[in-house]
């Protein structure tokens, strides 16, 4: 809708102001990232010598190397590498599961409405707003009963079940805008419940799949609470390892390694945001936001 507003001849000054604002805000937003980057490139002594946010005098990648493959997490000095893999092992099935289930739920709640469908949706939706600290202990018990305690599959199950609430919301709002006639046409063509979903509905939902995946990926990748509660030792996700590097109590903090580790931990989500950011907004337009 913007082109309607940009009138020719109407003050280059205005444009300048707009760009100015945007750039200033962008710089403010980048400040913490700047701090992290420069810190990760400094030797530790320089930091303890009092240089916290200035430009590094000596640039070194030691901290990055240490964070990736040398730093000790407990008595295992493997760096973040194995935990990075753990996180991938956790995030991929969890995102896939929650997105898949959310998609099929959204499909049912819009195209196969049954009495009480809205109520079911309401029930699912409220799960989005649960403070997770409150449910750690019963969840631990449940995982124990299921024999999933302390394992990556257990963590996947936890993330997938709370993820369903969000993904169902996304997909439902998206599918509401798909014409019902599409399903009807496929029914007349002889397609059944799953066939319609797979051949007709799913191929049309790429934008919202992207949104759902981005959201779930970020949430699950960055989760610490569930990771620390439901896994242990070498099966921990990267946030737990990161915490172990960062959250030193009675030792000395290696700030440069901390920052490098933090950025390593953030790389996948950053990549996802930068690569798919456009689809994020587009997908939001398509489904997550109503109106």
């Amino acid at each position: 809708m913007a082109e309607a507003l940009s009138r020719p001849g109407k003050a280059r000054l205005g444009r300048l102001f707009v760009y100015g604002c945007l750039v200033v805000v962008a710089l403010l937003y980048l400040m913490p990232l700047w701090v992290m980057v420069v810190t990760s490139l400094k030797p530790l002594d320089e930091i303890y010598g009092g240089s916290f946010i200035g430009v590094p005098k000596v640039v070194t990648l030691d901290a990055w190397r240490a964070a990736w493959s040398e730093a000790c997490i407990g008595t295992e000095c493997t760096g973040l590498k194995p935990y990075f893999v753990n996180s991938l092992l956790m995030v991929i099935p969890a995102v896939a599961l929650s997105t898949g289930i959310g998609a099929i739920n959204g499909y049912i709640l819009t195209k196969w409405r049954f009495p009480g469908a809205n109520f079911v949706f309401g029930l699912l939706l409220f799960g989005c707003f649960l403070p997770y600290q409150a449910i750690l202990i019963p969840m631990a018990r449940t995982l124990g009963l299921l024999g999933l305690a302390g394992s990556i599959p257990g963590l996947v199950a936890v993330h997938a079940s709370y993820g369903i609430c969000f993904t169902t919301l996304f997909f439902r709002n998206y599918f509401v805008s798909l014409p019902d006639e599409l399903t009807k046409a496929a029914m007349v063509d002889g397609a059944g419940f799953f066939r319609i979903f797979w051949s007709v509905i799913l191929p049309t939902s790429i934008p919202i799949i992207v949104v759902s995946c981005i959201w779930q990926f970020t949430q699950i990748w960055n989760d610490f609470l569930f990771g620390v509660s439901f896994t242990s030792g070498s099966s921990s996700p990267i946030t737990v390892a990161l915490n172990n590097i960062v959250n030193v109590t009675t030792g000395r903090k290696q700030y440069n390694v901390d920052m490098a580790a933090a950025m390593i931990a953030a790389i996948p989500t950053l990549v996802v945001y930068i690569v798919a950011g456009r689809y994020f907004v587009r997908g939001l337009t398509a489904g997550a936001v109503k109106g």
Partner: protein
Amino acid sequence: EGQIEVLHHWVSQSEVDALNVIRKELEAKGFEWKDSAVGGMSGANAQQALRSRLTAGNPPGAMQFLGWEGVQWAEQGVVRDLNDLATAGGWREALAPQLLPFVTSGEAFIAAPINMHRQNWVWANRKLFDDAGVAVPKTWAELIETGKTLKEKGIVPVAMGDEPWQIGIIFDALLSDINGPEFYQKTAIDLDPEALGSPEMVKVFDMLREVRGLVDDNFVGRDWAVATGMVINGEAAMQFMGDWAKGEFLAKGLKPNQDFYCFATPGEVNAFQYLIDSFGMFTVSDETVQKAQVALAETIMDPKVQKGFNLIKGSIPARNDVPVDDFDDCAKLGYHERAAAIEKGSMQGAITHGFAAKPEFASVFSDVAAQFFVGKMSSEDAVKMLVSGIDNAR
């Protein structure tokens, strides 16, 4: 021969190095050490992980205990009784009697203590003291005077951060130093309402306010190690901190008494406020793990291991009978003062690290002290808040 998973919250370099002493010894005996570290929040994250795992019925083989945790788990009947080993190894005799409440539960012996930290140390930059012509203070009043002198010279007298536990260290020390160990016993351990609300308590807060005057304004969010760095660099003169701070000085090649002072917080009776780390074993059905548990407990209580461990960790052995001849001067000082304190009854658990009152009460102390320290509350209000807080937690 067996594998044991050890859940602990030691993640910093010196801690891990020390832990490796135990690990190597255990592995020499043929047992595998499976490491589960959960750092952060003074062990609360590890606590929470443990609780999840016990709830799930999936406990680790061994767990590092702090404060009352071991006892509380033992009351739930999930901790393995090591009494046979303790009796055979004479552990009870080798430990200070003050420690026993934290490693036994009724008849059972539930945890093997590895080390003992003293919390109420003062670390000072000798050069600054000399330049200012001040000596090591003998009383808190002197300490405040010293601080003021230093402050006039543009030096930060006390380096610290604003975390409640850093403030708590000072509060714990004052509680005993100003009113004596009995007062500490009555308030911090027995939670006697009368003592808690007494004018003596007001004095403690008054003094805490004085200390606040010696701290610079940028103390928020400052890590304790950064504060130590300030003392080392000569930006600040003193720091109140447990003996883990010593490692920072030694790492810089500084020598006790030559380059820096270590002395106990000043008091009429020299207090020794301790905290210990111990390892408890959970009841498990797997026999190989059970064997490994025995081996681990014995390794921990091995005097040789205790020495090796503590040389690295900066603390002193939990066992009284391990000689400290190879240790540095500060450790020796601590070791000797411990012996004296055991005698005088001034060896007491530190509230801040959970070795006095149970956590629900201990946190009231640290809440009040921290709020008082960073805010503008009057001492009388702080005392009232303390009394009602403790009442509420009962």
